[in-house]
């Protein structure tokens, strides 16, 4: 007790941290129960043994492997393409210092701030007209542009401080602009570009609204959309609902563990210009 009082602040913080983590723990313990165990012991009892049936059934029912692949394909492509676009734009703004860049950047930032509802219906209509509705390509194109709008804003500031002497040296060696970009600017900025790519990947992975509108068929859905549309079903039992939650949470936790440092560094970069 005395120790607790001496460390009251730390104790309070640990209690709070545990409260924050309780939902994860509840999901985990119930995902490995049998329905019978759940109905007898309730959601709080620890599982007697580990059953993977609910996980397996849910995985098969929604073809979860396919959803993972869709999410990975969309998020990976968007991350890569959005970084390329951001680099091209930022090269013109940050290094080329083209005229009016402040205004163009303000427009880009505004595009990133807009509610997506302001764009979604014309995009939906246009995608139908082009035959791109319910294809992963439609989401890839739209998300790439939206992410690149933010990436351009961030990278322009980074490229603005690029050492001029390096650029001049490359120019003296006879390198053209295109060459300078890919052989000097990009390799030196690689750490920033990697952070940006990880961010785009995670943001796109977590995106819900556009995939919900555009990816309606089972074959094209991403993980969040598949979970949101199936896990609410009344016919699913409680263990399978928690199995579904667990399958949605796991990739996010894996990203978190892999990129913890980058994530915390990155959001601060993103927040304070």
């Amino acid at each position: 007790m005395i120790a607790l009082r001496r460390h009251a602040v730390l104790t309070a913080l640990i209690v709070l941290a545990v409260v924050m983590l309780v939902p994860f723990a509840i999901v985990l313990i119930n995902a490995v129960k049998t329905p019978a165990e759940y109905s007898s012991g309730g959601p709080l009892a620890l599982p007697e043994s580990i059953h993977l049936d609910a996980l397996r059934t849910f995985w098969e029912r929604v073809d979860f492997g396919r959803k993972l692949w869709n999410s990975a394909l969309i998020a990976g492509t968007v991350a890569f393409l959005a970084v390329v676009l951001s680099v091209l734009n930022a090269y013109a703004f940050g290094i080329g210092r083209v005229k009016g860049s402040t205004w163009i950047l303000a427009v880009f930032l505004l595009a990133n701030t807009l509610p997506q509802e302001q764009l979604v219906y014309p995009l939906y209509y246009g995608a139908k007209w082009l035959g791109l509705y319910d294809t992963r390509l439609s989401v890839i194109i739209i998300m790439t542009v939206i992410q690149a709008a933010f990436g351009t804003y961030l990278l322009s500031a980074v490229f603005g401080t690029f050492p001029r002497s390096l650029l001049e040296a490359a120019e003296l060696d006879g390198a053209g602009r295109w060459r300078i970009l890919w052989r000097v600017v990009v390799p030196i900025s690689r750490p920033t570009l990697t952070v940006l790519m990880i961010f785009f990947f995670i943001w796109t992975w977590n995106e819900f609204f556009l995939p919900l509108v555009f990816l309606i068929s089972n074959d094209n859905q991403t993980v969040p959309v598949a979970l949101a549309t199936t896990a609410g079903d009344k016919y699913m039992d409680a263990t399978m609902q928690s199995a579904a939650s667990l399958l949605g949470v796991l990739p996010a936790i894996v990203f978190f563990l892999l990129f913890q440092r980058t994530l915390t560094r990155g959001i601060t970069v993103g927040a304070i210009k």
Partner: protein
Amino acid sequence: MATEIRKGERAVAVSKDAPPPVRPSRTVSYWLYLVPSGVLFTVVIGAPFVASVVLGFTRWQGIGAPTWIGLENYQRLFQDERFWQSFEHNLVLILAMAVIPTFLGLVLASVLFDFVGKRYGARTASGLRAAFYLPQVLPVAVAGVVWTWILKPTGGALNAVLEAIGLPGQDWLGDESLALPSVGGILVWLQIGYPVVIFMSGLQRVDPSLYEAAEIDGAGWWRRFRHITVPQIRPEIYVVLLTCTIAALKVFGPIYVLTRGGPGGATNVPSYFSYQNFFQKTQVGYGSAIATVLTLVIVAVTFLFLRAQRRGEETS
């Protein structure tokens, strides 16, 4: 890597024989790099934006030709009780997503940095920070699925806890008076990690001698918090408040997954309201008008914030 260098050498060698490279004209060439984005941006953002604003002045079912009706949608909006309610709900969500997390985040970040970090080591502080941040990495839809299941009226985990300690269980998301506070509580849980992380990293740039001097002068934790921590990380506080307020105005995923705006519109928000008009009621013009008002509100809020921030910086 090696091949790249070799390629480079060959290029240089070739250029010795070839005539000196022609310098591309200075003014034109950088603009070329903006062409791909220019095209995509126009198609994906510019044109849909204009189209959506124009659609706000029409009646359209999504098929056939839209009918121009001028300001009728807007007149209808301002008399539509559901529309005003949806903005009122937004105010509650700004409290849950911006105000409360910023306040708690300040206290938590300051305690972690100024007290826990110094007394128990940086590892303890960063471990706790990670625990607070974890909900932030979840897709909002997944967080919604987790909470729907925890808050289920029968067999849900929260009610099981309450019943275990002798309190009555509630229909957290199905009861009209409880649904919005429940959603708000979940959003606090979801948001809290973001300000904690931003503020902690902001504190790292504060000169430690400020704290040391204050401590020597006998200033307690609260006075250090008020007179050093808060003023020093004011830029971060503005950024967090602004980004979280915008996020609260735009909130869609948690509403869709947790309540679909219900029960009886008790948790409806403008973004979900416009989605309903687009895809359930096929009142595209009306939905566009709602989206346009939401955009205007967001732009106005951003503008006011940035102005307040500039003033704050001038006076400090």
